[in-house]
């Protein structure tokens, strides 16, 4: 392997699972054995192999196909999975064949399990899948890359905000945003405000000692700083004032780049002016609000926003920072959604709509660049036409290098410049070409192997973006050749707003957060529930996730086991907790048996019906995402119709009734007990002791993917199981990896998951460390198995 030499070690670092096992502590070794069964089983002469195959052909192949690939209309999904042989046998025994359960039990089931496990079921048995597939950039990757390519010409992006929150307010005693210089600033002052929601009545803002505003009916204020857009989407900003105001968001063009121009007021009447702007999530954008009162009686100003899927509310303090920040180029072009059928966004398909969007985005960027050419190319007024032309040419070639994640040797650069900017060429055309080119869109297809490819993969893994200046320097100087060097860069890059955004994207998928967009609740049963409450719950969840991941411990287990909730006053009242003083605070609720994300009301609310809980939705989510098991789609779609049941039944009783059929129980034997374990939490996630006057029954048991029976008495038992079970941990690792690499973990070799899991356990389940480990794995992993890399 070529990579071995680059890592400076004589052999592959993780040459199959054996290496991992040797170094693993005793307990881990046992688990490892389980996880790597596939590799071992494949090498053993399995007894009864022929018999297994014969039974499979006779009883299974009709629906699953001779190679387990599935048969349309019978078993749509290929027989692939991660169950170990005993669990697989147990599952076959309990559920197969669907029309004749009981026909394949005991030794027969075991033989079939051994056969299919070895032949095609287990990871790594499918030769062609054990490598990354060619993928295009995903939509977020396109947006982030373009933003960062341009940001690099302005000093980069991704800096995390300091601890201070709010906006810097400069107050002036005159309407024109200036104070008297002679008076040593007696008619002006500066302070940090938590937000902008002021009613000054007929008076002034409260003046600090020594400050005097000279005129009784005029003053002005300028607020400035940064605003964090938590998610990607369209934001509506609203200024409500009786006076004059102007708002700029993500635009440093004070002359014309405002979002809202509400300077002209008539009759001192209060009015609302709003503007919309599309922002990419996880970034901080410059914001400035100017306000003035002049010869008017009253003064008031309020700045609100409506984030995507949020509600109109005063811009909260937690998203504001009082410090200056650079503007970001945001691609506004709407894109068709990426494929998410595998549970994470990936760039595995192209379509005419996608090509159109890519082309429009390239054009939009080209327009932005030409509109900001002097700024980006650092052209100065005094530059001669020749000097200007040279700067623009240099800028243009730098742009291409950044977009293509490479650098051109001097001659090649000059040649390309001539080709792209020579006769008939324009910067606009060049930008359009650079971003339409496969060199931009397919990083894996075009990278020449080497430090630049490592840099490219590392930036995609941690930021979904292009390498920044420091990473480019490292690549240019050949400082990405060893694992240590790459890890060092990864650790630097993780302390960046883009790494946080990337992880937030994972939570979005892992916790299916987009479900909440469609949530509404029965007004009679839940009169206190509103879109505002839902928005607060989302904030509560975001604060919790951030607190867990970016604290020193960064402990995966706390994600599942924390017994507290972040609550503000409104939520505290609903969820039976003492009210915090101000804003959101973490409040411990041990009596309710809360358990991290498992019982977070935002999730409990979105995995529920509008008037009742839904143990099935909850159970499916828990099975797939929290305990790391796979489910196939239901053999027939059965709608839950509440009216069909005896109204005295509890939800648990109804679901049990609905799924009692053998063909359902194949999956519902797992789904139901997991879902039932959360029955103490109603459809908006409040703790409850009873349903319909009957005490809640949250007990149950299921057989996990190792074949072990797990008994649960409620949500916390489930959370403890997920926190401690290697299978669940490995499930988390695999899902995170999918999101980081946009490739299934199996593509990096059958041993990769084990290795990552081992390092996860050794780090004390630090999510941050795991992320770094994954990024390094992806960066150093071989690229595509192309004819070229095969030659090396």
């Amino acid at each position: 392997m070529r990579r071995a030499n680059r890592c400076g070690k004589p052999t592959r670092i993780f040459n199959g699972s054996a290496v991992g096992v040797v170094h693993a502590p005793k307990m881990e070794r046992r688990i490892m054995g389980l996880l790597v069964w596939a590799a071992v089983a494949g090498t053993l002469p399995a007894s009864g192999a022929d018999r297994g195959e014969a039974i499979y052909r006779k009883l299974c192949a009709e629906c699953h196909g001779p190679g387990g690939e599935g048969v349309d209309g019978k078993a749509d999904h290929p027989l692939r999975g991660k169950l170990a042989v005993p669990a697989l046998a147990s599952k076959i025994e309990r559920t197969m064949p669907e029309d004749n359960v009981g026909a394949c039990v005991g030794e027969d089931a075991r033989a079939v399990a051994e056969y299919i496990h070895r032949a095609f079921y287990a990871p790594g048995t499918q030769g062609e899948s054990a490598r990354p597939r060619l993928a295009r950039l995903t939509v977020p990757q396109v947006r982030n890359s373009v933003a960062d390519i341009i940001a690099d010409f302005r000093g980069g992006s991704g800096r995390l905000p300091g601890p201070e929150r709010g906006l810097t307010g400069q107050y002036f005693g005159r309407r024109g945003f200036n104070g008297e210089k002679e008076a040593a600033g007696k008619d002006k002052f500066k302070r940090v405000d938590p937000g902008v929601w002021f009613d000054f009545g007929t008076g002034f803002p409260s003046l600090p000692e020594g400050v005097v505003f000279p005129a009784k009916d005029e003053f002005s204020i300028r607020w400035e700083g940064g605003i964090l857009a938590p998610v990607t989407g369209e934001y509506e900003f609203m200024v409500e004032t009786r006076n004059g105001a102007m708002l700029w968001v993500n635009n440093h063009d004070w002359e014309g780049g405002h979002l809202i121009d509400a300077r002209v007021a008539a009759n001192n009447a209060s009015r609302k002016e709003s503007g919309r702007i599309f922002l990419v999530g996880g970034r901080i954008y410059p914001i400035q609000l100017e306000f003035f009162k002049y010869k008017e009686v009253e003064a008031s100003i309020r700045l609100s926003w409506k984030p995507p899927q949020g509600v109109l509310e005063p811009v909260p303090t937690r998203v504001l920072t009082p410090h200056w920040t650079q503007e970001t180029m945001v691609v506004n072009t709407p894109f068709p959604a990426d494929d998410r059928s595998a549970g994470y966004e990936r760039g595995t398909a192209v379509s005419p709509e996608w090509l159109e969007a890519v082309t429009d985005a390239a054009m939009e960027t080209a327009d932005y660049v030409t509109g900001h050419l002097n700024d980006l190319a650092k052209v100065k007024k005094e530059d001669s036409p020749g000097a200007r032309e040279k700067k623009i040419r240099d800028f243009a070639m730098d742009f291409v290098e950044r977009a293509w994640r490479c650098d051109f040797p001097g001659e090649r650069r000059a040649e390309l410049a001539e080709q792209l900017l020579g006769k008939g060429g324009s910067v606009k055309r060049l930008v359009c070409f650079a971003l339409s080119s496969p060199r931009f869109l397919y990083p894996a297809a075009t990278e020449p192997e080497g430090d630049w490819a490592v840099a490219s993969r590392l930036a995609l893994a941690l930021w979904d973006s292009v390498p920044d200046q420091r990473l480019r320097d490292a690549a240019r100087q050949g400082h990405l050749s060893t694992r240590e060097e790459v890890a060092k860069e990864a650790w630097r890059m993780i302390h960046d707003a883009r790494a946080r955004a990337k992880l937030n994207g994972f939570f979005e998928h892992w916790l299916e957060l987009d479900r909440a967009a469609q949530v509404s609740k029965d007004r009679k049963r839940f009169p206190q529930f509103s879109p505002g409450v839902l928005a607060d719950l989302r904030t509560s969840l975001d604060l919790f996730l951030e607190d867990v991941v970016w604290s020193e411990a960064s402990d995966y287990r706390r994600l599942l086991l924390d017994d507290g909730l972040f609550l503000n006053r409104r939520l505290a009242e609903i969820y039976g907790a003492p009210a915090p003083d101000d804003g959101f605070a973490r409040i411990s609720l041990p009596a309710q048996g809360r358990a991290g994300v498992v019982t977070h009301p935002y999730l409990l609310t979105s995995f529920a019906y509008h008037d009742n809980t839904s143990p099935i939705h909850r159970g499916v989510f828990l099975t797939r995402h929290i305990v790391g098991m796979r489910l196939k789609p239901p053999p027939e779609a059965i709608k839950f119709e509440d009216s069909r049941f005896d109204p005295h039944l509890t939800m648990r009783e109804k679901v049990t009734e609905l799924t009692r059929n053998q063909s359902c129980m194949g999956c519902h034997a797992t789904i139901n007990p997991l879902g039932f374990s959360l029955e103490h939490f109603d459809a908006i996630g409040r703790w409850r002791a009873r349903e319909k006057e009957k005490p809640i029954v949250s007990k149950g048991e299921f057989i996990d993917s190792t074949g072990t029976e797990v008994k649960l008495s409620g949500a916390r038992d489930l959370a403890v199981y997920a926190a401690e079970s290697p299978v669940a941990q490995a499930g988390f690792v695999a899902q995170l990896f999918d999101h980081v690499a946009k490739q299934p973990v199996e593509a990096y070799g059958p041993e990769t998951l084990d290795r990552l899991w081992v390092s996860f356990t050794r780090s004390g389940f630090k999510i941050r460390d795991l992320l770094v480990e994954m990024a390094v794995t992806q960066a150093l992993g071989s690229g595509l198995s192309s004819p070229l890399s095969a030659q090396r």
Partner: protein
Amino acid sequence: MNKRRDFLSKLGLSAAALPFVAGLPACMAASAGRKQRIVFLFSPNGTIPWEFWPGVEGTDFPLKRILQPLTPFKDRLLVLQGIHNQVGGDGDRHMRGMSCLLTGTELFPGNIQGGSDTPAGWAKGISIDQELKNFLQGREETRTRFGSLEFGVAVPNRADPWTRMCYAGPNQPVAPVDDPRQMIRKLYGQVKDRETVSSVIDDVREELGRVSRKLGAGDRALLDQHLSLVRDMERQLEQAAKEKPGSAYPMPEIDPDIELVNDNTPRISRMQIDLLVNALANDMARITTLQYMRSVGQARMSWLGIEEGHHGLSHEPDGNAAAVEQLIRINEWFCGELAYLVKRLAETPEPGSDGSMLDHTLVVWLNELGKGNSHTLEDIPFVLVGGKSHGFRTGRSLMFNKVAHNRLWLTLAHAMGHPLGTFGTAIHCEGGPLQLG
């Protein structure tokens, strides 16, 4: 509903007989058969009266320095002296000069303070261009894609009573588009972008092929699919280039890299005029405005060797010969841009009809002040050019006796077949339309 058609049908006349109906008022006949357009062209900060006004009435009048660029079109001119903006109320004269110019009505009391007088807000009513647009858009035979287009040149992107002359209604200023690239996107959507795309598509196709050859078969499938989509797109672009709907006249070339900076104003001005004529030729609108800078605009006309800002210069007293000379040249430049517009209209044959586009287009030159240093709203330098189809008798200098400018807008409305009783503040409409026919 179409009242005129109802009226004719009551008389037993079909629409086909229209051109042969005799004895109808000129304005009605004109509006029925022929295409009529109006272009309002604004330049700021007043003029230098003695180098502007001919000083005599009638058909035999001299063109002073500022109007010299219009010499080739002297017989198409109406120079209208003695028309005053009589709208009073809140706001300084620049503000009222600008925001009451096309609206003919007062400003709301507000919080925007000018150089003198009381602070004010937006105008209280619709502007004549928007009024006429609504009128034309309300009738099927005169409806166009946009109805009106608002062009700008070097207009600062700030919304206040000095930068807005067009109003869709009370408190509803309409912003001009001063970026030719934005305007071409508005007019031609992605057609222009498509041209850039067409020009890079070859290169993209080649790159895809080159990259694809290096890949294994499994991975190549995705790129090959991409390649075939690019080929489809190329075919569609070729097809679209052949068809170009609604473009009797090809769109003008716009430098995609042009920057909106002061020194590029002359180039931007010509681009905007070319686009304007093009949009009219392709019948995308019948009403257009072209606003240079803004009231109190501080354009530095370095291309004339003038480094001082326009508004600053306009405050200089009449005795400052150097300043006056520069102001004359500034206004001459504006007139030159007007003349270029007129020339473009004159040399473009009217699509689907006889004569030139100028025959069917009335160009109205506006200013928010009569004179810069006195800030007078009297003797606003109004010049009309073209407009044969509007029924005006051109090639004349006219001197009115202190008439309110609202009456000029009434005249235009009547000429367009929209016989308004009043426009703007009613008291300023006394006397009705002016006799220009």
